[in-house]
């Protein structure tokens, strides 16, 4: 349970309830007329305000040991996901790993097979980069008809963090790569012993063995103490609890890259290794399940991203895609990282359909749902990155629609 000091403080307040991640404190009538609480009553690691209630929500799956949770995107402020709200996907539960007993082994088509402790990795040259991770199953309920009730469920398998770790290229120099090497198997230390084959070229370009997330160690749900980071690649490849990298001249064809994470086309054949996430965006305000109180000036806000580079521009439509206006980008665009966008909108009280569209620096334009279905049919499951439509009714109610 929460550390000793907080525990003691907590006991005295056990009767009070507070949202997850927070501690209850009495609210003074006038905070300028009463001393506040002293320093370090929290034991030295702070908690969020008791007035903040957003949480990850879980998918309705038969077992919570192989399932996922959604980031509450509508409540997210800024461009980083708080670590405690990062989306989750595990196939055998969250393991508890003692970093002192954890190793990363690199072997296969290498000069010298080597093992690295977490401490070894921490004393190597490091890089710090901000990237999103998106599950390629994000938005998969929306192919045939609008299904999910809000943006947490339509798009919440997306989170952004600052990641710190060692580039794979740095490790590669330590072990030496054999000439014919082309693929690398990455393996996790969880109950699923999760495995994916990754093109060596990707690993050498920007693959990272991450041990840091948002300034501290990875969170347990995100792979503590080590995870693979493959900027812009589908989330399943960012192997968590990483324990092994096996270099080979061919892919391994694991269950997660054949039975799952392959994209079935209308002709009955399926695409292997659809690894990069397409350009995508979504309006988070206003979005489904919200209510606009009255006509007037609103600030449309949202998130855009691409697995292929920087977001170049975002456009917003309030008439179901007939006309588009450029949105403001709130923060500096970084490669394979989300941006926040916003755009003023004077709502006249008539029904309207809101959309956003992302173009990335390679020129890839986020498709409409029609285009996407024309290209892929209705059964490819993964990589749904079509333009999302939210309908605003005359009464201000917002809902998930296909425009």
């Amino acid at each position: 349970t929460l550390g000793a000091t907080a525990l003691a403080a907590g006991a005295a307040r056990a009767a009070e309830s507070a949202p997850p991640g927070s501690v209850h404190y009495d609210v003074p009538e006038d905070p300028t007329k009463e001393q506040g609480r002293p320093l370090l009553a929290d034991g030295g690691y702070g908690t969020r305000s008791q007035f903040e209630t957003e949480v990850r929500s879980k998918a309705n799956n038969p077992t919570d040991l192989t399932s996922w949770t959604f980031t509450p995107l509508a409540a997210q402020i800024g461009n980083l996901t708080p670590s405690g709200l990062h989306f989750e996907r595990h196939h055998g539960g969250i393991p508890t790993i003692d970093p002192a007993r954890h190793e990363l082994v690199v072997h296969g088509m290498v000069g010298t097979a080597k093992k690295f402790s977490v401490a070894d990795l921490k004393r190597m040259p490091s890089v710090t980069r901000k990237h999103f991770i998106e599950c390629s199953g994000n938005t998969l309920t929306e192919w045939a008809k609008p299904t999910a009730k809000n943006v947490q469920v339509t798009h919440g398998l997306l989170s952004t963090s600052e990641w710190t770790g060692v580039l794979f290229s740095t490790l590669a120099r330590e072990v030496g790569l054999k000439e014919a090497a082309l693929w690398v198997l990455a393996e996790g230390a969880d109950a699923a012993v999760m495995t994916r084959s990754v093109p060596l070229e990707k690993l050498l370009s920007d693959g990272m063995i991450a041990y840091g997330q948002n300034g501290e160690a990875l969170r347990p749900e995100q792979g503590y103490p080590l995870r693979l980071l493959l900027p812009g690649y589908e989330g399943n490849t960012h192997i968590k609890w990483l324990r092994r990298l096996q270099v080979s001249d061919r892919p391994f064809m694991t269950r997660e890259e054949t039975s799952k994470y392959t994209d079935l086309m209308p002709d009955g054949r399926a695409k292997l290794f659809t690894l990069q996430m397409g350009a995508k965006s979504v309006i988070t305000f206003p979005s489904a399940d919200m209510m606009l109180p009255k006509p007037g000036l609103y600030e449309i806000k949202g998130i855009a991203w691409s697995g292929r580079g920087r977001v170049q521009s975002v456009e917003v439509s309030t008439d179901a895609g007939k006309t588009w206006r450029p949105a403001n980008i709130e923060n500096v665009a970084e490669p394979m990282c989300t941006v926040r966008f916003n755009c003023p909108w004077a709502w006249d009280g008539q029904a309207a359909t809101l959309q956003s569209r992302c173009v990335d620096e390679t020129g890839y334009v986020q498709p409409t749902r029609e285009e996407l279905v024309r290209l892929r049919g209705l059964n490819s499951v993964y990589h749904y990155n079509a333009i999302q439509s939210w309908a605003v009714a005359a009464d201000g109610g917002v809902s998930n629609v296909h425009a």
Partner: protein
Amino acid sequence: ETLEVGAPASDQDLARYFAIQPDGEGLPPGSGTVSAGAKVYGERCAACHGDKLQGVPAAGGAPLVGGRGTLSSAKPVKTVESYWPYASTLYDFVWRAMPFDQPGSLSPDEVYAVTAYVLAKGGVIPEDATLDASSLPKVEMPNAKGFYDGRGPDLPLYNAGR
């Protein structure tokens, strides 16, 4: 010039790991028959995947057989039988992750056996088959030719809608 970080990994260090490739590389010694597999399946798998391998939705266990001919239909049914391109994947996955509630608890012989049982129930190999490191990679899966490398973007999306 290296950073002199890390230690050599010995064969013993590597012995606890495995990954099976389609050509059989990585398969352990041992073997298993369909009938031995029936026993393993009944005791260790049926509760979640069903007596008839039909799946048990409440347990999260998918159907393991059926679905042939459905892949280009409106309702494709993807199973080991109908969809998986390589038998090696079944061996690898069951050995690492099944039974779901006792992962990594099966011996190589048990994995050969239950792999043989699942493939026989799917009509992929005969009921009297025995699988081992040499026969398993030779199994031809019904959908072996159903996959292609899908790397790279959908090209029509470049400059679409502009």
